[in-house]
């Protein structure tokens, strides 16, 4: 590989120490993000996608959380940095936007105050310059008449506007990495389309790397260049975005794609379902974690854990039988068409 990645996570393992024993929320996570690239992190609730993000930012309470592995940001291991250095990076070089903009904004400060606070923390500028910068950022995110908005409080503006404010705040220091944790989940589709557009535009303008965490495969198809699918704390498949949709290899990814109702095509067909529910992190299945819900699972799957194996062109999959499953499905397709 030429050069270094903007962010490279190597074998990250995040363990929560709880009263009921320790829980490994993220287990052996490896991924990388380059400049100007959007990596999608997909999975269902509890799969560890948010914990991965919070580990990268080191937002979790370190008295009850144990990190193992390496998180290299511009070649520097974030996990070994002292907290003071970390403060310089958070919000400055790596910024994060959250799902719920209402609870992430401080209700007793004006929008302007909150953006200015971020700028003043990280940059040596006067208050006046900071305000001008804040107005500029709000304009960039498409907020009409930002000079007036800057004096308003979070409750005075709509959900879509709040998310724009969050983006403005996150990008006010021109970070090189943006982590967006379900930024549009709480928004309506027409507003979601606006926000995704804003994120995409600004990514190009600032040449940022973006990690887009979402459970919505539609959003992934719209904005991501590469996708990592997570299940129970592990990446089970990673591929360029086109491959995920045209040639997914892992039965879980395939199942997810098939179980979404489509906007076109036959609607009288029954929806495909993945049987069962996601097991609890307290008792992770032996062997392949997806085996209990997988219709292709055999003895090997139930006893031995598969590794994340690279097939070709950056496509990685964690499955013992992905080749066999692919062939079997081809056969099914042939018999179905003939």
């Amino acid at each position, binding site marked *: 590989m030429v050069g270094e990645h903007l962010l490279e996570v190597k074998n990250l393992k995040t363990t929560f120490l709880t009263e009921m024993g320790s829980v490994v929320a993220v287990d052996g996570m490896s991924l990388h993000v380059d400049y100007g690239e959007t990596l999608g992190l997909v999975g269902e609730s509890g799969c560890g996608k948010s914990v991965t993000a919070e580990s990268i930012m080191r937002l979790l309470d370190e008295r009850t959380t144990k990190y193992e592995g390496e998180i290299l940001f511009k070649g520097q291991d974030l996990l070994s940095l002292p907290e003071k250095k970390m403060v310089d990076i958070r919000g400055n070089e790596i910024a994060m936007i959250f799902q719920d903009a209402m609870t992430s904004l401080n209700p007793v400060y004006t929008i302007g105050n909150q953006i200015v606070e971020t700028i003043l923390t990280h940059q040596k500028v006067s208050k006046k310059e900071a305000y001008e910068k804040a107005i500029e950022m709000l304009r960039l995110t498409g907020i009409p008449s930002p000079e007036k908005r800057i004096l308003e409080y979070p409750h005075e503006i709509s959900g879509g506007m709040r998310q724009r404010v969050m983006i403005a705040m996150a990008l006010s220091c021109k970070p090189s990495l943006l982590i967006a944790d379900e930024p549009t989940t709480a928004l309506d*589709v027409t*507003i979601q389309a606006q926000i*995704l557009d804003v994120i995409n535009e600004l990514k190009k303008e600032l040449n940022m790397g973006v990690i887009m965490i979402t459970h919505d495969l539609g959003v992934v198809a719209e904005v991501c260049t590469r996708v990592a699918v997570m299940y129970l704390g592990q990446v089970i498949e990673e591929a360029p975005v086109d491959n995920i949709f045209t040639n997914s290899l892992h039965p879980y990814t395939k199942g997810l794609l098939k179980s979404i109702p489509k906007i*076109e095509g036959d609607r009288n067909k029954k929806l495909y379902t993945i049987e069962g529910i996601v097991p609890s992190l307290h008792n992770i299945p032996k062997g392949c974690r997806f085996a209990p819900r997988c219709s292709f699972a055999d003895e090997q799957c139930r006893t031995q854990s598969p590794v994340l194996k690279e097939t070709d062109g950056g496509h990685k999959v964690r499955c013992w039988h992905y080749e066999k499953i692919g062939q079997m499905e081809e056969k099914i397709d042939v018999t179905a068409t003939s």
Partner: protein
Amino acid sequence: MSQQQAEKEARKQSAPILQVKNLKKYYPITSPFGKTKDFVKAVEQVTFDLTEKETIGLVGESGCGKSTTGRTILRLTEPTEGAAIYKGRDLFTLKPKEMKKVRKEIQMVFQDPHSSLNPKKRIGEIIEESMKIHRIGNKAERIEKAMYLLRRTGIREDQYYKFPHEFSGGQRQRIGIARALAVNPSVFILDEPVSALDVSIQSQVINLLEELQDEFKLAYLFISHDLSVVRHISDQIGVMYLGHLVEKASTDELFENPLHPYTKALLSSIPIPDTRVRRERIILKGDVPSPINPPSGCVFHTRCPFVIEKCKKEKPIYKESTNGHLVACHLY
């Protein structure tokens, strides 16, 4: 296929089981001294019919009045104006005692399975309770029926004595559905029943709802903001914007030939989980206006890309294009 179509045709002929006519709901905004200052115009002149074994979907963004529509039909909030004719009787004029009887036949399933089940009751009791209230069967029969319904909705019978918190979101939604089924209803009002669920669980619950519809001959009013889910389950779809039903058509017709600019924008902004499909997206400017002060004329004119002078002054009336496709827009 032809048989299915014939069945659908036959269904269209049969009289509607529930007719909602000109439904209007205004919430008063009162000053601290109890004087009414203004109204939140949540639902305005909504009209639709629901036929036996049919599903009508109501879609729209938050605050468009789709949930309020569902709730007023059951009089969980009192309607301001209009009528809901169920089996020949107007629900809005019924006395509380009579209304209670009707509630047995029209049941509701809520979005949040975490807050809609009593946390202090065992799930078996939760399902039995509704039968008890409506005096259905004796104790033994009720338990047997609750057991059957649990099994039917995919919960193991030995979990009868467990509490709601011991179940996952999808399972809790199944319990909510079993509870609604317990009193032999003929209409389900489903308010975002799968929105809180993960994709893999969502498809399980949708399939279950479809099976139950056939088995128990239920009519569904399916309220959701997710157009792909609504498309999958509904026979007819009504699109709502700021309290108004702006377009109504059969599902296939609506998706193939959307007429209202809002419907078009809504359809174009759904992210499609496939990179091979690329579409022209219509991105609407701005936000939904406040329902306290809705725009004059057509409520959508502030965001409409095709706005003309007439839209700002005159309220559009429904026009029928082809076979029951209704649209409220000056451009048609």
